[in-house]
């Protein structure tokens, strides 16, 4: 507070004037009070209190069922004959799917393998097909779609509305720099948006722990914390964006329409379109087509192999004096086995190589398409946020890639240890066909074939992967704030 003396020659007196700077706190206080007293705050409270705990609870029930199914499946697998273990595997459900369902309901819940074939199971479902019809709300949806809309609702008249009311003029008739006003609005709005959100999330977390959700296992809570922080950044991005448009328009009604259209584009259009556009630019054959191609390849090579082995088998049958039409695989004749391996192995190696090539090729193309889709989608903060959240929840594309990689690695192990020690020959002659299969003599598979184990990424891995996207969100927020600042500096308040 500075006191000044103003000399007034006309009146021949000295006027004392006490002047001090307008503080940021005053502005902040006013913003908070104004927002709290409005009906919007009530609406926000109600929506948060309703949607967040409820969605968390419903999804946690589903997760428990998935977990029970998974444990049951593990039990079944452990009781399998040791020779059959490793021929199938199950994927554990991600506990954080409660927050963001992500790929959890589209990724296979397990697989089974045979020589030259990997068969994926169906994905987990919500339970009743009815949820397939009506969809499911999760935490990610509430923040991404609903809270962003509410953020716009709070921000749309922050500048243009005050201009319409005339109070903006009144404020600017004081010694308060424009950036302070903007900052006050941002801080006030964010506080008002964030507090109900945090309270509702807190309640939701309490409900979760009360129903037995393992929030404190394996540092889940760290990931949850990070997701909450990301949500706050996301909400602030939209709030600032609302302020930007408000400071670029002079009628709050115009602001509203523009914001609504932005919401539609960011939240509805871009996520979906990015996938489609990526599919058009870098098309990839469907899994069904690839599976068919692999099947045909296997059949083809099996037939070639059969033709090459035919004479050997027939000779053996003649040698053993079998009845016509009876062939056999003589495991006790080392020469027969050696000859058979000599002929068959190159074909099998070729089959292995070509199958691997088809797979690698397909995977690589899919990766590139996915990568492209992700980059295109980064136009919209909503998609960026979805990527961050699903990565944090271990239900994002990373986990998908990890799972398929893990399955392939497991198959490669099984192939090396078990399948390569087996034989599967198909001989055809004159319309008859004989199939032979089993373990090659002299090459017994290991006592305990490898079990499939899938591990979720460590928190540092998830973080490292989603860090660029988190940074992008923050950059968006900062960018929008800068634009708002520039726009507001030149804003005509009359």
């Amino acid at each position, binding site marked *: 507070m500075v006191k000044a003396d103003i000399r007034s020659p006309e009146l021949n007196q000295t006027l004392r004037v006490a002047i001090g700077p307008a503080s940021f706190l005053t502005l902040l206080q006013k913003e908070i009070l104004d927002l709290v007293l*409005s009906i919007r705050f009530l609406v926000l409270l109600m929506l948060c209190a309703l949607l967040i705990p409820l969605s968390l609870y419903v999804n946690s029930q589903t997760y428990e069922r998935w977990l029970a199914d998974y444990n049951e499946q593990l039990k079944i697998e452990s009781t399998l004959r040791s020779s059959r273990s490793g021929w199938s595997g199950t994927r554990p459900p991600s506990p954080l799917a409660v927050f963001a369902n992500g790929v959890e309901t589209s990724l296979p819940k397990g697989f089974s393998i045979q020589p030259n074939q990997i068969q994926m199971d169906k994905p987990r479902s919500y339970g*009743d097909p009815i949820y397939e019809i009506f969809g499911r709300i999760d935490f990610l*949806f509430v923040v991404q*779609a609903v809270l962003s809309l509410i953020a716009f609702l709070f921000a749309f008249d922050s500048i243009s509305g005050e201009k319409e009311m005339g109070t903006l003029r009144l404020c600017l008739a004081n010694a308060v720099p424009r950036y302070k006003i903007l900052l006050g609005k941002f801080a006030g709005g964010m506080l008002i948006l964030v507090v109900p959100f945090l309270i509702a999330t807190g309640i939701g977390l309490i409900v979760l722990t009360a129903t037995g959700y393992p929030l404190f296992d394996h540092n889940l809570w760290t990931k949850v914390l990070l997701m909450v922080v990301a949500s706050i950044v996301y909400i602030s991005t939209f709030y600032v964006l609302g302020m930007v448009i408000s400071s670029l328009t002079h009628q709050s009604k115009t602001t509203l329409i523009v914001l609504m259209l932005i919401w539609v584009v960011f939240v509805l259009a871009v996520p979906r379109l990015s996938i489609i556009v990526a599919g058009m630019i870098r098309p990839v054959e469907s899994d069904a087509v690839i599976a068919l191609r692999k099947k045909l390849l296997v059949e083809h090579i099996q037939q070639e192999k059969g033709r090459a082995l035919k004479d050997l088998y027939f000779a053996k049958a003649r040698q053993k004096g079998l009845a016509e039409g009876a062939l056999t695989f003589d495991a006790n004749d080392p020469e027969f086995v050696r000859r058979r391996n000599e002929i068959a192995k190159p074909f099998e190696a070729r089959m292995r190589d070509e199958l691997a090539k088809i797979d690698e090729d397909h995977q690589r193309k899919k990766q590139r398409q996915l990568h492209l889709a992700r980059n295109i989608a980064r136009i919209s903060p909503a998609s960026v946020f979805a990527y961050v959240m699903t990565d944090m929840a271990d239900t994002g594309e990373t986990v998908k890639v990890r799972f398929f990689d893990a399955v392939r690695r497991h198959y490669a192990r099984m192939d090396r240890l078990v399948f390569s020690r087996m034989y599967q020959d198909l001989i055809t002659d004159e319309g008859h066909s004989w199939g032979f299969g089993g373990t090659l003599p002299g090459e017994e598979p290991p006592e305990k074939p490898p079990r499939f184990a899938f591990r979720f990424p460590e928190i540092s891995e998830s973080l490292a992967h989603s860090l660029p996207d988190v940074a992008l969100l923050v950059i968006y927020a900062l960018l929008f704030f800068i634009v708002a600042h520039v726009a507001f500096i030149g804003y005509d308040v009359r």
Partner: protein
Amino acid sequence: MIWTIARKQLLINVMTQKFVIGFVLCQLLFLLSAVILTRDYEERRASYSAAASQHARQLRQIKVYSQLTITVDRPPAQLSPLCEGFDKRLASEATLSYTRIPEISMGQGEKNPLMVVLKSFDLVAIVQIVLSLLALFFAYDVVSGEREQGTLALTLSHALPRHKMLMGQYLGGMMTLLPMVLVGMILALFVMISSSSIAFSSQDWMRIGLIVAISLIYLSTFHLLAILVSTIVKRSATSLTVLLFCWIVLVVLFPHASAYLAHHIRPVEAKAMVDARARNLRSEMWQRLWSYAKKHPPPPHRWEFIKGRSVYTGDIPYPIMIYYAPREIMLWELEGLKYCLRLDMEYAERIHDLYRSYERTLLRQADLAKMVARLSPAWVYTQAASILAGTDADHYLRFLERARRYRHVVIDYVESKDGLFSLAYFTRRNMNELLTTAELEALRKSRGRRAIDDLIGRGWDEVPPLDLRDMPTFDPVSETIDAQIKRALPELGILIFLNLVLFLLSHVAFLRADVRAD
């Protein structure tokens, strides 16, 4: 008078930046959606044709009746770019055979797990979400704003009955929304028609007209809601907040809540349990087959006299195809067939009943959810549109039902050709042309192996396919528009009812509203 007010409202709305922005964006969305979904339809149509011709080709290659496994295809709905519904989410084919009865099965579906919000972004979805928001945003201050401005008092100071003013406001607002919908639809239809895969019949045009009309009724609902709230609430900003809250609850919350409620009020058994029971039945069947096989061992035979034989398992007389076998073997197989096939078909029916009753519980649950979801005009609208577009769940269920009936038709046909419990089921030979093992041995001794080979023949490759040209074909009959309208009537009724109620309420509220600025 009404027209004057309406014109004023239309001009107010239209001569603004926001209208232009909204209009342009809507058209872009419509166009984009139409292009993408039409292309998608073309691809689906192409794979449907490919699948259908492949299945037809397969039929032309079968050589015995046992191979008759028919896959019928469901063509994609032509109007699916307008309203996708379940068209992609449910299977587009059904497979049937003597022992295989078609069940509900999911289709390829949406592979994108990050599509958190909408399942599909078809034209109906654009109307449902974007245009309804626009309707709110144009009308949220239609009364409260005019009151604040003072023009409400001014207008009513003239000799204008209040209800006429209300009608005028309503009409003006609807006239603003009309071009958005119509132009968008026209653009979309243009895109659709220019596709070679799409050809609309006159009934299709009527359907399209109805969908457009229902879209307008849907938008009118939100428009009226906005007018009502704008009348009751004094300040425009408050009115907007209230409306947005209502929108979120009606469009987002209710449909999800209905699924949740239905899940808890009418829970459905896990499919895994039904599958388990089905598996038990199948094991039971196989046990019975095995015990039959034990009691009926094959007569002694020489393997060399059997050609082209494939069976379920060698020790059970349940043949699939046999090119040639000695007579007593054939007889043994025939007797076995009569028992096994009959048993298999019986068990197929029993398992089918299991799944049928499971389906019924699913449907009952869905019905309850639908009833609750009817609180949401957004859901009602989508439901009505998808019924007319031929993409709702019932449409698929009808297809399934027809596939099941077709199976009976096919079985009757095969029976009429005496191909079911007879030799023709698994072979093309007649009993009289078959020699017994003893006769064959004698022949071989006397004339050598060559003679046997000549007698038996070269195998299935030289057998021409069965002539099935007189078999009834599956007709993917589509529902007539009358039937569809009848089914969509409850939904239509709800929308119209909502409109009337909201209009009445607005009327009453406006008559008693305080028009002073303050």
